[in-house]
């Protein structure tokens, strides 16, 4: 709205004498007022061209029309909306005048906009030049291409680049001759942009034709062999039937329908209806009807075979010049090769982000398993606790960034305490009984899950990320990764670093490593294994809380949040090997990478991907029962 008001003002400034009429425009408008009121997409083209040819007033009128800012008064004057409104033909201010607004449909507006494009390409306003380019990108004519070529210079370098690229794309579509089009294709060959690939597609579109010989003058893409993968026998027959080269063969349903129409005295062609439950009897009945001349003969298998023999099948390009299609095919091949490479990179990024999530989720589990040989089934619920902590903090602190900064340490503290409590109350009393520990922590897990349901309800709670984490980092049309996933990757790296520091450089790490290797010996050296186990358990649980926030940022927070990750976390630990952070890292990378690869092989079916993933792990365990990086020495015996 405002834009057009500005335009109206600008127009008023451009025209030094407002009363100066535009007689040509006046004539066109007067002669076509009916069509302006009720335009039709199919017929409005010439009128729009005429109006555009009348000069700046005409263009302004078209702008207003397309923008639904034009109204028609009872006495047949056109007004451009504004305060006060403007007479569209004379450019006069028309205070107090009122009319009914004209609302052209989107088809008509498309016609008007494409007529305006030429004028707008050199418009002083960059936003309007950009919108003109948007219109052109949806398709253009040769005239528009020439207008674009005339307006290639642009003060804005980004727009200049867009114009140059669009010029090439339009040349491919509507270029003056085929040589120019081939040149344009070769210029862009290897580009993986969606727009370029979209421009190539119509050039390479084919249709299948059956004929005894290659059609004259046709641009043959290739010949198909019936019965092959590209043209199954049924499709070939259907093609022949469609081109009237073959009688439609009788289908089973068709046969039954025909027979049902010719039941006479409970018999069809002399065969009792009750016997028609076998295919042989039906064929005999039809032959009998055929012999009697009551039904037309249907194509037999032999006829179908003969028709297949007599005809060859060709894929023809709609585009007639082989030079263009060859260049396009070559360009498409290059684009596909580069595309495959980029998809691989994109897949790698995806896998990396998935791996960092698994790493965050599994690292706590791996450490507790390494030190105490117990699997904490409530680990998933600690992840959930972290996510709910994040959600609760967010309801208290409105600022997203601040709430995240508060939530991360708070989630760590909450789950650290929960882990220590769980250790003191339950796990300590079940020392050396891993299976009982597993079950007892499972009891804790179902209790915590239900507790979360009772407190937060069953519906999913959002954990909104701050604005600077929304959106994604996009390299081109193929490679892109959302900022949250990058942040999670960084978070995982930070925890890897922190963990390595604690383990290798601090007293606590030394003691943890000692207890992992040989608790008895560590105890006799004055280390309290109980205290170390408790701290490790707390640390592992704390990281689960952090992982919970990370996961909550891109998934909804529900009481089942942790359940979705717990099995994968177990797998990560089992595959990676216990008691070694590099093992966990390797396990997470392997599992994350592998699930993405399997998923990409069959993108429609993520369930199958997970099934194959687990099967792979079961088989993997056959060869490396203790994981990728197994524990060595005495600790491994335990």
């Amino acid at each position, binding site marked *: 709205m405002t834009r057009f008001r500005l335009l109206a003002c600008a127009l008023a400034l451009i025209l030094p004498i407002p009363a100066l009429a535009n007689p040509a425009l006046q004539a066109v408008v007067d002669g076509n007022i009916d069509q302006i009121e009720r335009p039709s997409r199919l017929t409005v083209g010439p009128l729009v061209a005429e109006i555009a040819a009348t000069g700046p007033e005409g263009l302004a009128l078209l702008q207003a029309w397309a923008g639904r800012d034009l109204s028609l008064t009872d006495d047949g004057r056109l007004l451009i909306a504004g305060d006060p409104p403007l007479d569209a033909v004379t450019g006069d201010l028309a205070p107090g005048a009122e009319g009914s607004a004209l609302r052209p449909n989107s088809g008509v507006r498309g016609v008007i906009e494409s007529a305006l494009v030429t004028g707008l390409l050199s418009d002083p306003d960059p936003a309007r030049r950009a919108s003109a380019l948007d219109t052109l990108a949806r398709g253009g004519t040769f005239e528009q291409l020439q207008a674009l070529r005339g307006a290639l210079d642009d003060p804005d370098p980004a727009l200049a680049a867009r114009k140059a690229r669009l010029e090439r794309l339009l040349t491919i579509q509507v270029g003056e001759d085929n040589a120019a089009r081939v040149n344009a294709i070769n210029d862009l060959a290897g580009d993986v942009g969606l727009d370029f690939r979209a421009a190539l597609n119509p050039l390479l579109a084919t249709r299948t034709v059956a004929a005894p010989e290659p059609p004259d003058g046709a641009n043959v893409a290739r010949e198909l062999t019936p019965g092959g993968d590209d043209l199954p026998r049924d499709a070939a027959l259907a093609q022949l039937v469609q081109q009237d080269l073959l009688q439609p063969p009788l289908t089973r349903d068709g046969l039954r329908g025909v027979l049902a129409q010719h039941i006479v005295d409970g018999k069809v062609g002399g065969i009792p209806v009750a016997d028609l439950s076998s295919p042989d009897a039906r064929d005999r009945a039809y032959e009998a009807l055929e012999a009697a001349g009551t039904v037309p003969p249907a194509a037999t298998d032999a006829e179908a075979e003969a028709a297949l023999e007599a005809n060859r099948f060709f894929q023809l390009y709609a585009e007639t010049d082989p030079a263009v299609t060859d260049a396009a095919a070559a360009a498409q091949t290059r684009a596909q090769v580069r595309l495959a490479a980029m998809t691989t990179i994109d897949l790698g990024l995806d896998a990396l982000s998935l791996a960092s999530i698994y790493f965050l989720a599994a690292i706590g589990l791996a450490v507790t398993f390494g030190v105490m040989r117990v699997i904490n089934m409530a680990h998933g619920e600690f992840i959930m606790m972290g996510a709910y902590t994040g959600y609760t903090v967010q309801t208290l602190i409105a600022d997203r960034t601040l709430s995240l900064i508060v939530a991360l340490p708070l989630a760590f503290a909450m789950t650290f305490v929960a882990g220590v409590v769980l250790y003191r109350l339950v796990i300590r009393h079940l020392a050396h*009984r891993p299976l*009982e520990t*597993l*079950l*007892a922590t499972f*009891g804790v897990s179902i209790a915590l899950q239900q507790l979360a349901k009772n407190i937060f309800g069953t519906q999913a709670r959002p954990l909104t990320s701050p604005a600077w984490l929304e959106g994604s980092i996009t390299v081109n049309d193929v490679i892109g990764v959302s900022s949250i996933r990058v942040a999670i990757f960084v978070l995982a790296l930070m925890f890897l670093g922190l963990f390595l520091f604690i383990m290798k450089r601090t007293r606590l790490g030394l003691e943890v490593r000692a207890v992992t290797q040989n608790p008895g010996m560590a105890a006799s050296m004055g280390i309290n294994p109980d205290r170390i186990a408790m701290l490790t358990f707390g640390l592992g649980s704390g990281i689960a809380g952090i992982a919970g926030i990370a996961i909550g940022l891109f998934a909804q927070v529900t009481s089942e949040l942790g359940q979705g990750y717990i*099995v994968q976390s177990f797998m990560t630990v089992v595959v990676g090997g216990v008691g070694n952070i590099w093992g966990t890292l390797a396990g997470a990378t392997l599992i994350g990478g592998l699930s993405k690869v399997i998923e990409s092989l069959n993108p429609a079916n993520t369930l*199958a991907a997970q099934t194959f993933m687990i099967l792979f792990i079961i088989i993997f365990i056959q060869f490396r029962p203790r994981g990728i990086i197994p524990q060595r020495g005495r600790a491994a015996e335990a």
Partner: protein
Amino acid sequence: MTRKPFILQSPSILVVLAVLAVFTVAVTVLSHAYGSGVIPTSTVKVFGMTLCLALAAVAMDLVWGYLGILSLGQMAFFALGGYMIGQWLMYARTESIVAVQLAQSPIPPTALELQEAVANQIFGVVGSADLPLVWSFAHSLPLQMLLVVVVPGLLALVFGWLAFRSRVNGVYLSILTQAMTLALALWLFQNDSGFRGNNGLSGLQNLPGLEGVDQATLSVWFLWASAAALGVFYLLAAWVVSGKFGSVIRAIRDDETRVRFLGYPVEGFKLVVFTLAAMITAVAGALYYPQAGIINPAELMPIASIYLAVWVAIGGRGRLYGAVIGAVVVSLLSSWFTGGRAPDLNLGVYVVNWVDWWQVALGLSFVLVTLFAPKGIAGIFDRLAGVMPPSRRGLDLGADQGALQEQEAKA
């Protein structure tokens, strides 16, 4: 020296069978179909299904309480058994319905047309009209009944062979069994796996060929079948664990390495028990799902198998009757509390609504049982019967590390 017949070695076997018989007769007499009708048909079904769960728990006890493998994938075999019998139930019933429909048409259908119509009816819901290969035997009851034990048995055999061969044990093995059932569930969830995706198989409560029999009667018949299966397989399980074989598998549970060094083929023993338990579980499932009426892949999710372990743990591992008691008590209590019929508990400051809090109570009581009564409910009977282990310093650690007492284990 002559051994006593295994059935007389412990009075528990006869007691369990007697209680089972009395229970079955009592329910029959009080049912709608054969007696006074005090017990509604739905409750008869619940009793029948509970007996099936008890049977699955007996098999779980064989694997966990006696062999020491905490299998968290036991319900995969249960559901597979259900799927196998469900295939026939669904196919045969759809076939009879479709045959009636097609008989209306002027031309009688061919065998192929009939099969296609059935396939279309069954698989239309997942957008397919072909009968998958895995349904090749669905037309035949004897073949599908054979598959009820063969398919889960084969799965257990292959999985067990792979796992035991590479000496995966303890927590690793538990996680692996959990992964197995998850993989199977995810596979079944797909529409193109041939088992109707997440729709599962439904309408299983209607028995083809028995359209004239009402559900009240059918429910009692299934109760009898479930009770008979529980009785027979309880005897089988008791026999398996009674003799030398039983001693060996208990020894494997307590110290696998020692048994291996004594020259026993540990993997073979494990494989036999694991596969046998899978087959028993499958039979329980095949009896359970026609009473439940519907089966879908959610039944295979790992959580179901863990609950089975919970029942056995609360009932008492290493005692077959413990498993039965645990399954019956906990599953009936669960359905009573979560069914909304349990009265709210008014604490003054807070009204405890059991639908919301039962899971919490179950989870916590489970932790308490693990901590303070590792022998579960069966421990009470041990105490009553005066079966006490000789005092060897410290607390008894339950069946898993039965050879060790608390003080020894800490060393």
